[in-house]
């Protein structure tokens, strides 16, 4: 099984203060930590599990700026065999579709049975690149995948639907799977793997290899802003004892406890 994994380096914003920068179209990045996108870590692990099961190679691909090499190196240490950075700095503004077009030009040259992506990136939240890419490559896809069993020329997958329901499908290979978090438990990298990864070449692909003019940009961010407050909770203030007292009284009055 030869597998391609698409990954993205993203700012870790869940616990961070996120501020709009002076352009109004991007965020201040200096004080943020960047790391592998959450669901991409699961996509990588799924690839490594299949490689352990049935051999083959894993190629990690990312459209990113130079520091994406650090993330690709981590991905190499956790089980990818080769890594390709597509130089984001060569392609001006990007959106999900343009990213997919760029990925397509690189991945179509590779031999693969499966492509794994995370189901979404936590920075722009598009849920789009994987499906765009599958369509551009002319292969079937499945999104929100929470389980995969590989059979002969086809895979049995479960997708997560709303309400905790699962959809059980069969999909022919080659195919693209955009995976949900929780599909597996991502692994650590061993020191041996880390030392090997530190020495590996990361291939770089840029505008010399991809026809920039053929790429289409569908969407552009016009403005970033703090979401308007439509409804706001009534905040109880005071010490934990005081706020608990107020809250308990309120619940009691409403007959909720």
């Amino acid at each position: 099984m030869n597998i391609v994994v698409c990954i993205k380096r993203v700012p870790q914003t869940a616990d961070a203060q996120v501020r709009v920068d002076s352009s109004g179209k991007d965020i201040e990045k200096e004080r943020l930590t960047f790391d592998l996108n959450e669901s991409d870590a699961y996509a990588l692990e799924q690839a490594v599990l299949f490689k352990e099961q049935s051999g083959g190679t894993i190629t990690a691909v990312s459209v990113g700026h130079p520091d994406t090499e650090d993330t690709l190196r981590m991905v190499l240490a956790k089980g990818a065999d080769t890594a390709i950075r597509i130089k984001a700095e060569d392609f001006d503004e990007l959106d999900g579709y343009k990213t997919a077009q760029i990925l397509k030009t690189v991945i179509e040259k590779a031999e693969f049975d499966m492509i794994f992506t995370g189901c979404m990136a936590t920075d722009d939240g598009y849920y789009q690149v994987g499906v765009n890419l599958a369509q551009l490559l002319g292969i079937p896809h499945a999104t929100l995948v929470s389980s995969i069993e590989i059979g002969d020329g086809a895979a049995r997958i479960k997708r997560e639907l709303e309400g905790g329901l699962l959809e059980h499908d069969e999909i022919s290979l080659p195919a693209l799977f955009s995976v949900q978090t929780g599909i597996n438990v991502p692994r650590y990298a061993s020191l041996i793997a880390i030392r090997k990864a530190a020495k590996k070449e990361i291939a770089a692909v840029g505008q010399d290899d991809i026809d920039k003019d053929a790429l289409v940009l569908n969407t552009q961010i016009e403005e970033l802003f703090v979401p308007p407050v439509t409804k706001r909770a009534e905040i109880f203030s005071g010490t934990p004892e005081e706020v608990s007292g107020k809250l308990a009284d309120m619940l009691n009055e409403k007959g909720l406890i």
Partner: protein
Amino acid sequence: MNKKKNIADQINPEIRDALLEMGADGIYRCYQCGKCAGTCPWFPVGTYDFPIFRLPLEAALGMIASSEDKDELAAEIDKIYRCVGCEACVDQCPHGINIPSIFRAGRRLLVDFGSYPEILKSTVRKIHDVGNPVGEPREKRSDWARDLNVPVFEPGMEFLYFSCCISSYDPRVKSVARAVAGILQKAGISFGILQSEESCCGEAIRRIGSETVYEEVAKANTSAFERNSVAKVLVNSPHCYTSFKNDYPELGVKFDVLHISEHLSDLIESGAIKPDKEFAKKVVYHDPCALGRQNDIYEAPRNVLRSIPGLELLEVENFNHGLSVCCGAGSGGLWMEWDKDERIAGVRVTQLIDTGADVIAVACPYCLQMLEETAKSMGHDIPVMDIAEILAESCL
């Protein structure tokens, strides 16, 4: 360690060299006598097997965190993050091997590749993002002092009071910083705080293995000290103390650092502070590793407690001073998710309570948080207090 394979196949000189480069100390001097494991705070926990006496040899053979099996590797990395850096083993080792330095070397290699526990990643991230492990905004760093009229540090003031992230932000531990400021004000000491210019000292994350973020915050602090012509820093956390005293000099900065217990002890001796209210309780003192064993400050905090009228000072028999048992919060332990029955602090809390004390006294915000929470979770309602809090009750 993968036992299924021939050991000779697993020897990896490259990893040995990388560990040496990252500061693993004394790996060739070990003859596996086991004294380290006997004194390690994990030993009495009993439910977790932590044979650290094997570590120097494993490091010499380059056989650390090297399993190819996912689950075995996870267990190995969990092991590397069990060391709480108390350095009890360092004191005991007949060859003076620094076992925590070997763990730290391994951690540095792992952290560079994001191959370490998620919970610690989030701690490192918060320190990078907002300069404290709590994840609270910088602007709130001096909220603890809001109603106390604590001045902003200005050149010419005698001390910068550096209040540690935990005592600056934690709703419970804040009262330690408040007690310190109150006592200093009463004694007429010239001091100020740096408010949001202060960052975490970086001691814990350096021991977690994040050299990059440690350097980031250490440089932010030293340049803030230089900008404000700080010559003397007063700290209430032994972790800030050991970081400023033993790590920051590598950065080529010069300032004096004093732990609050030393200064309070001096102020009491000189008569600048007069503890006059009775604190009629039996108080057992717990030596924080970073203050006692690592920096030889044993008597100053005891002097503070002894000066308080009515206070009866108790010791944990056999396990005091250099033989104090760690609370388990060092080197990232404060944030780790170990099972309840696998907690070092449980051992220490039992020892402390068995003395018959009414109050547990500490001189460290990490110990305070760890021992208090653990005592509570074990169903004990014994108060855990910082020496500054006890002194404040007696002299303010």
